[in-house]
């Protein structure tokens, strides 16, 4: 089966033997974008979180056939060192990662949350950010999520001023 999808704003067309292959493995092994992680394969840890049309999706449990015609964003497409996404900027300011393995999943989940709730309360964060971090970086993550919301807001206001 042929799957066409935009990944990080680039159109990819991949030939897939089994259309039920999880999107995670297509992204990692065929497109060679290794930033999206495998942790459990059962939608239980969130390490594989990426965005499908702006929504957070656990890609280990999302068949690639559903991605056909959609826009996928992975950590590699969120921002760059030169132009980091506000979530990445906040993560850098708060020095969040320890081992780092869970972090892309958390940053993608946060980006999706901020799309929907630009200024999340602690309660919003508790309810929506439900990935697992074994190193226990939640304390800094919470600070970083609030900081990202702030950065987002100031970015938005400076764009309005400029326009």
């Amino acid at each position: 089966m042929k799957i066409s999808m935009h990944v990080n704003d680039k159109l990819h067309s991949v030939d897939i033997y089994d259309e039920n292959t999880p999107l995670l493995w297509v992204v990692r092994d065929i497109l060679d974008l290794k930033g999206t992680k495998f942790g459990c394969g059962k939608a239980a840890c969130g390490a594989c979180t990426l965005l499908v049309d702006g929504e957070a999706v656990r890609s280990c449990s999302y068949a690639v056939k559903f991605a056909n015609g959609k826009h996928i964003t992975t950590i590699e497409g969120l921002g760059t060192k030169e132009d980091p996404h506000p979530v990445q900027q906040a993560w850098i300011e708060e020095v969040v990662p320890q081992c780092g393995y869970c972090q892309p999943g958390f940053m993608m989940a946060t980006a999706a949350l901020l799309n929907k709730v630009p200024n999340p309360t602690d309660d919003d964060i508790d309810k929506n950010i439900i990935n697992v971090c074994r190193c226990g970086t939640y304390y800094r993550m919470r600070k970083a999520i609030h900081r990202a919301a702030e950065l987002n807001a100031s970015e938005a206001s400076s764009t309005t001023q400029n326009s």
Partner: protein
Amino acid sequence: MAEKNKVSRRKFLVRGGLGTVGVLAVGAYVFRNPIRRSILSMANSMEMGYMGDTDTPMIWFEVTNENNILVHSPKVEMGQGTFTSLAQMAADELDIAFEKVQVVHASTASGNIDGMSTGGSTSVSGLWQPLRELAATMREMLKNKAASKLGVSVGELTTKDGAVHHKDMVMTYAEITDGVTEWEVPDTPVLKDIKAYKYVGKPLARIDLNAKVFGEPIFGMDASMPDMLYGAVVRPTKIGAKFIKADTSKAEVMPGVVKVVLEEDFVGVVAASLQQAENAKNAIVTRWESPNGLQTKDIVALMTVGNGKTTIIQKEGSALEDTAEGLEQLEFRSPIGAHAQIEPNGVLAYVDGDRATIKISTQVIGITRKEVAKRLDFEEENVNVIPTYLGGGFGRRLHTPHAVQAAVMSKAVGKPVKYFFSRKEEFQHDMFRPPTHHVLKGKLGEDGLLENLEHHFVSGDVGNNSVLLPNPVPTILGADVGAIRGGFIQYGNVPNHRSVYWHVQLPFATSWWRSLGLLANTFAIESFMDHMAIKANKNVVDFRLAHIQDDEIGIRLKNVIKAVSDKAGYTDEVVGGKAMGMAASIDAGTPCAQVAEVSIEDNQIKVHKVTVALDPGLAVNPDQVKAQCEGCVIMGISAAMHEKMEVVDGELTPTIYGPYHMALMKHAPKEIDVVLLQGIDRPGPVGEPPLGPIGAAIANAVFRLTGRRLTEMPLSLS
């Protein structure tokens, strides 16, 4: 580049300070018997010390063409921030900007191999002396070489910003090393005064921050090679299952299957894709023989003080009779714990002729090389282990024999083979934290102070049966050096005190789990101290302080207790529905005290804030020391309040996150306040000691709120 250059003359660097931290911590307490005492110090120092080459700066440092310094680290980065601290130490002695220092994992082919492991919170403390000496020596080598290139005397040269300066002349390190093939290693120079350091002691951002924020492929799971195939290995689901036979006929003809590999000790399959390998593996019909019916209650019964072999690990004064008047006694338990690191164990192996290349997330680089070489009957030099960043270690990757299986499979197909554990396999084939049982006994004197305090406890293997300890150690010692971590009575002023360890062999593998016995032992002892303070009608801070002796470690312990109670504003009173609980521990020579602020909501324990006081000695990077404290607090909350493996009909369960309850964002305290003290002038262990007090601190707060003494982890009110 410097790394490739030959050393023409070697000079031994002074090995001062190695391993002494751990020896002091435990050795000072244990046994009157000098033989056992020295063995315990030895075993302990092996875990503590750095065992690798400290003679050859060239295998440690490489000067790149861009005039950066590459540090080839024999210790792995698993989140603990070691690479950043090593870069700070190297930059200061090498006189180069911190931003110009990069740290990479040394492959075994580079020659920089740690004979032991990355673990025991030892990376920074163990390398503190040798790494700075190596860096200082390297700086002198660069100066000497510059002097001969410039035709001036060394005495006229200074180093700054990655260059040697002579009057108006500047020669960068890259210019100096250019074209040089022979180096002379001079005597180790005197190290700089710590106060003169620009980077050591500063809270600099982690050097791997960008790689981790932008999703770079740095982990073992991300490794790949051209023409790579995928492997899968059949594993039993039952405890103690013995392999009888396997019918592989169906798997052999499945799509994508390249080969089914049937060995004496495992059955594996190699296929073109991950999915095909998994499908074929599931089609292999394997017969196992397993003792059936084992349940959690059998393990609990086994794991009870009085069973197994006993060793007194600490003895002062006389024992407390069971009939003694005023005897107080409480029992505590901790469950089987899983590592549950998010990156599964995995490996990429390529056996090409008589050489093997292994890319792997491991805490035991040297041992992995040995194991692979032995199985393939290769010279060790022909096996190159290339370590990667670890997606969590926590002790799980002190056993990575799957490298051997991947190598065998690669050899069978002549191509690189990558394979990793499923999450179910991770949970069922973990090397678990052993369950424990503790009996605490005490008796107050007329003055309201303890006359007796005893800790009797039982644990499965932690250090015993580990490749990291030579076999005779546990036999001679009697006690398991891992299980007894944190099991000592730290209240030296109690006239009669003792700690008695019982060892039980479990039917499944247990091993090192971050901080080893510390979490459970501290939970038991410090909950009991709280109980006795209340019995004595004393404030828990004063009660603890009164029982701590005035030697170096005692003074440091008292200082962290005072600091945490000041910072948290500790009170025994319940205020606005919240109560505080306090606990303290010493691990590997690092004292830590914590206060947890807790309330009960819907019959659930809620931790709002944790204050930590830690005395890690000199904090090379205070921000990362704080990060370790925060991480330990949250991992400790997870273990103390949520996690538990069960044994059901001979199987370890659950086998997935979720059912294996772990702390999530909503369970993490919104505030973690860390105070750092500096009681010694060198770095001490950091990565595990802050895990000690948290369980007891929470349970003690719950007592103030409910009057109930929780004696079992995971802590629960229902």
